[in-house]
């Protein structure tokens, strides 16, 4: 290796605090921004060394390690992972799932099948198909799409972050920094956790900069990053991750036998 560390992340508002200072804190990091599902593929192909990938992709690969202390999680409502439905949960017979995040798609299926005991027909909703055109009982949308969908005819909007936490009492982890096997991060190892602190300390500035592009109020953007999204990966988040893995595995949405908590450089993990 030439010393460069190729890091990939999604370029959404909720990832900004994690990547804001990354290349400043570790100049050897080369950051590229991409779609979540593409990131997982690029990490698998060896095109990236570290990826901020959806947790279900982390389970599926089964051979990546985690950067400690950092994740994208919610502890209740998340506002941006929403199942819109024409009927109440228990009556949902068909659902279209945004292909944008396989983690949330699996979460929706866990809630439908394990919590509510339904067996809906599942289809995927491609990125380029407007959700308004969908004929299924329910449609899962994430991110900007979730907060920007008009969807007349859908009487219910279920916040999946809230549904998960109300049900399990645990945070929900959406994404983690996953390191490809065999990669040595060297001095950049600690940069990810430091970048989180750096980014959160500048949440106001990030919000002020990004809000106009998003057409949002900066005050709201800032609170979205600091109060709704949580960036830690502590014991509660890990418990949420383990619980999610167990449900996903039981439904065949994640492979058997994955050891969920596999830290990159466990010797550097701070004791709690």
């Amino acid at each position, binding site marked *: 290796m030439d010393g460069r560390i190729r890091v990939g992340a999604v370029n959404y508002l909720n990832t900004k605090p994690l990547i804001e200072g990354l290349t400043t804190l570790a100049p050897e990091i080369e950051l590229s921004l991409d779609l979540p599902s593409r990131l997982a593929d690029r990490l698998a192909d060896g095109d990236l060394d570290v990826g901020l990938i959806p947790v279900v992709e982390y389970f599926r690969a089964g051979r990546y390690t985690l950067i400690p202390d950092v994740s994208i999680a919610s502890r209740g409502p998340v506002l941006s992972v929403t199942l*819109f439905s024409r009927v*109440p*949960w228990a009556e949902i017979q068909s659902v279209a799932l945004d292909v944008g995040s396989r983690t949330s798609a699996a979460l929706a299926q866990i809630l439908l099948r394990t919590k509510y005991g339904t067996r809906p027909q599942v289809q995927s909703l491609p990125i380029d198909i407007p959700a308004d055109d969908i004929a299924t009982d329910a449609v899962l949308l994430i991110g900007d799409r979730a907060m920007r969908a008009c969807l007349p005819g859908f009487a219910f*909007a279920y916040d999946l972050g809230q*549904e998960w936490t109300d049900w399990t009492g645990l945070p929900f982890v959406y994404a983690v920094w996953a390191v490809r096997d065999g990669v040595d991060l060297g001095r950049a190892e600690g940069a990810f956790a430091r970048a989180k602190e750096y980014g959160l300390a500048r949440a106001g500035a990030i919000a*002020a900069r990004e809000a106009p592009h998003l057409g949002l109020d900066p005050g709201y953007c800032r609170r979205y990053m600091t109060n*709704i999204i949580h960036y830690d990966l502590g014991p509660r988040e890990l418990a949420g991750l383990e619980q999610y893995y167990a449900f996903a595995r039981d439904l065949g949405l994640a492979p058997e036998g994955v050891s969920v908590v596999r830290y990159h450089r466990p010797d550097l993990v701070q004791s709690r």
Partner: protein
Amino acid sequence: MSATIDRILSKAANGERITFDEGVELMACHDLHKLGRAAHAVTSRLHPEPYRTYNIDRNVNYTNVCAAVCDFCAFYRKNHDADAYVLSREELYQKIEETIALGGDQILMQGGMHPTLKLEWYEDLLRDLRSRFSSVNLHAFSPPEIWHFHKINKLPLEDVLRRLKAAGLGSIPGGGGEILVDRVRKELTKNKALTDEWLEVMRVWHRLGGKSTCTMMFGHIETAAERIEHLDRLRQLQDETGGFTAFICWTMQPGHKMADAPAAGSFEYLRVQAISRLYLDNIPNIQSSWVTQGAKIGQIALFFGANDMGSLMIEENVVASAGTVHYLTLEQIKASIREAGWVPRQRNVFYELIDERPPTAPTAAADRVGTTREVNHAESGRSLPVVN
């Protein structure tokens, strides 16, 4: 669809009244950001002041005996149930004294609809509390209770209200409103004031010069159009009387008898509150519902149409018995407001500021004007608390 929504939103944001049909169109729109931004624009226009308010009161349920029988309520008891109660005067005095000690200026006193207590009992109660605690506003008796007094005492509604007012009733809370559509009310409750009756209590009270708040509890069996019908009835009455000081909405808290009802979450709460701000062009204040939504969403609600953090509820029984209630301390309420970029100010039910010495600094209006915490404090010539 989107063009229609945009047109309705810009109308509302510009202060033009939106129609019933336009309200229904908004209710079918799940674009949280678009609705929130428009609602925030309205709030910013109606409330350009550098503060956001809260009040300190205590929710006293003087009795849990109730003849109404509502499907969503886990609080009420029948008269002969072992745990049925009517609070003694001493218990009430103590609760009020504690409230005053905490800086409170108001008692939100609601009961069940007790089947045997006569109007004289309530008059005595009010007179007694009035004379003992002259500084405390008695914000009491929701319209279904007052309608119930009118029925069981066989007295004209206006007489009931005049007598309660004379005895010391200060203002009326918007309780028992749920959804003001009879189809919904008949399905959810028995023996409880119907829509016109609920509104008539408020109408007569307002005519007598009284003020009150109004509410909406949604996320149960109502349709989107019925939510707008509810808002529309409130807006019509407000046109007529101008007596409502504030509107508060919250999602029904599942977990009791209506456990099967789908839980409307925070996404839905913020969406509906935003639409309410847009629709209720004549109701000056909207209170955030952190008691049901928690502190984080309660604060974010200040960007979705609310200009008030509601009440420091020293005691809350009804929502709590349905299983979901959040507690904040006074400091947490103030911190939430401050952290969101405004000065916290204590107000009363009439929205008069009542803090002894108002904080002098308009806190960094950082987020609202699109600057950051690195705002130039020197510019305002004051030392400002850092918004973080």
